[in-house]
């Protein structure tokens, strides 16, 4: 295993936490999606995202489940590096579908930053993740292809787009040591460098967005948490916190 620098750890954790919480949010829809095939799709995509988080965590702490879980779950809120998009609770299906599409459109670009990484393991993981992400994007697109053609559904989707877009911009907030990770060759570009490509994807999918009208989030180098984070983490820790020393 390559030695992981502090900067590399920082950018990896930002991706770990986004993947972990995105997978977690998807699990909330298993069984209550609009129809059975969607229950299955969200179960599958949720597993993939959690699996990506687990693979990245292995790069940091090795393969032992206890070590992976300690880093995945047992950090103070200020030590998490997730973005607001994956922390927020979205009880509406249209908002969830939009988050799924917007996240995956960026996720593909984010994995590409790891493709030539100086940390070989990250480059290897990105190959597998990118092959899975292709299906995630196809899933979101297939639904939107149909829903955007029907008036009522179109209106709901577009309302959700404008609701979720400000949150989605938090994905491009870089971790504190991102600049160092760039110099070390861990990543081939910053998160903010992906924004233009991602905006083009959004415009192509939904029609031109007046980006100047989208409220820009306050960026904190991923050090601040959305209000929904605390109850989300409490739910994830409900069993673990019965006794953090035991095996389940």
């Amino acid at each position, binding site marked *: 295993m390559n030695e992981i620098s502090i900067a590399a750890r920082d950018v990896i954790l930002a991706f770990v936490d986004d993947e972990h919480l995105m997978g977690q949010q998807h699990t909330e829809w298993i069984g209550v999606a609009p129809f*059975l095939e969607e229950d299955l799709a969200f179960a599958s995509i*949720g597993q993939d995202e959690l699996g990506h988080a687990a693979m990245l965590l292995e790069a940091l702490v090795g393969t032992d489940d206890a070590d992976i879980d300690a880093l995945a779950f047992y950090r103070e809120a200020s030590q998490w590096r997730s973005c607001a998009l994956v922390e927020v609770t979205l009880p509406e299906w249209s908002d969830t579908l939009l988050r799924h599409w917007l996240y995956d459109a960026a996720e593909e670009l984010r994995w590409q930053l790891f493709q030539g990484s100086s940390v070989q393991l990250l480059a290897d993981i990105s190959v597998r993740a990118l092959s899975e992400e292709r299906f995630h994007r196809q899933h979101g697109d297939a639904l939107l292809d149909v829903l955007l053609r029907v008036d009522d559904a179109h209106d709901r989707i577009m309302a959700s787009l404008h609701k979720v877009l400000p949150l989605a911009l938090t994905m491009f907030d870089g971790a504190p040591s991102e600049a160092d990770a760039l110099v070390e060759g861990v990543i081939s570009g910053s998160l903010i460098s992906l924004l233009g490509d991602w905006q083009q994807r959004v415009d192509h999918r939904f029609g031109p967005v007046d980006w100047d009208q989208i409220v820009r989030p306050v960026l904190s180098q991923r050090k601040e948490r959305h209000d929904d984070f605390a109850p989300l983490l409490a*739910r994830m820790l409900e069993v673990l916190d019965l006794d953090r020393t035991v095996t389940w």
Partner: protein
Amino acid sequence: MVLCMSRSWSSIDDFEAFLNNGGIVESDDSMPDEYRLAVFRFIELHANSEQMGGLTERDWIPRTPGLRHKMAVIAKTQDEFGHAHLLYMVAADMRIKTRREMVEDLYAGKSRFHNVFHYRAKTWGHQVAIAFLVDAAALASQQAVFKNCSYGPYRRILKRIISEEGFHMRLGEDRMMRIAQGTEMQREMFQQAIDDWWWPALQLFGPDSKPNDMLLRWHIKSERNEVLRDRWVQKFVPMLQSYGFTIPDPGLRFDDDEDRWVAGPIDWAPLKKTFANVGPDSARRISEASAHWEESAWVRQALAANKTVNELVQA
């Protein structure tokens, strides 16, 4: 080119002779109406139970302790919904109800699902007990149907379902062993789960089969309820006791002469309540599922306007 011919029988006696000779019925056969309805109801009950079982388990997915542990639990629940998906298609092929009608009847409280899913999983221990005790009971029933099932499409689907349920049972067993070897808190939690789920799991097999049980006569089931129930008792009583857990059956005894465990009297009243959808958690389970279904109606309506996806959703 293969030419498929629909078969028919001149009388119920001819049909039963066909079944007794090991005949397998296919969906395009002109089967007797009584048989078609009996098979359909059986598969619909199975499909509904996979669906409601998935809903029971989903409540605990977000709280699963551990990242890769959570992935395993999601995979299990995905299997359960996948089974429902397959079974609804097999049932819909019998042309009595569409999949949508079956799901809407389920969420309207008009159709049945297995008794165990009228109970709520209240702790992580309950979640493990479901994977361990309930999945084992369901698997035993499914294996008995698969062994000699006369309806071909169901039998073929059961082969896959049984294979996956075997993994679920092993997952439950593995989790049970971790808890059994854990702390006093963990063991108390699981003992409580056994106390809460032992009887519902045992009642899953149903009361003793009637002498004229048509499901047995038509080779849909191959073993009597009491035989399956007893086999489950013989397996799980010694296994749980070997890990130091107790069985919440004051009438349970070991018959030295017969060299087997004998369960105490079974109170069937709780099972009968679930038949009427008035079990301990029936109202919440059905109303929540119904509310989610209603809230997402706009998605299905939009998709219904599209021919290619429409077939998938409407079937």
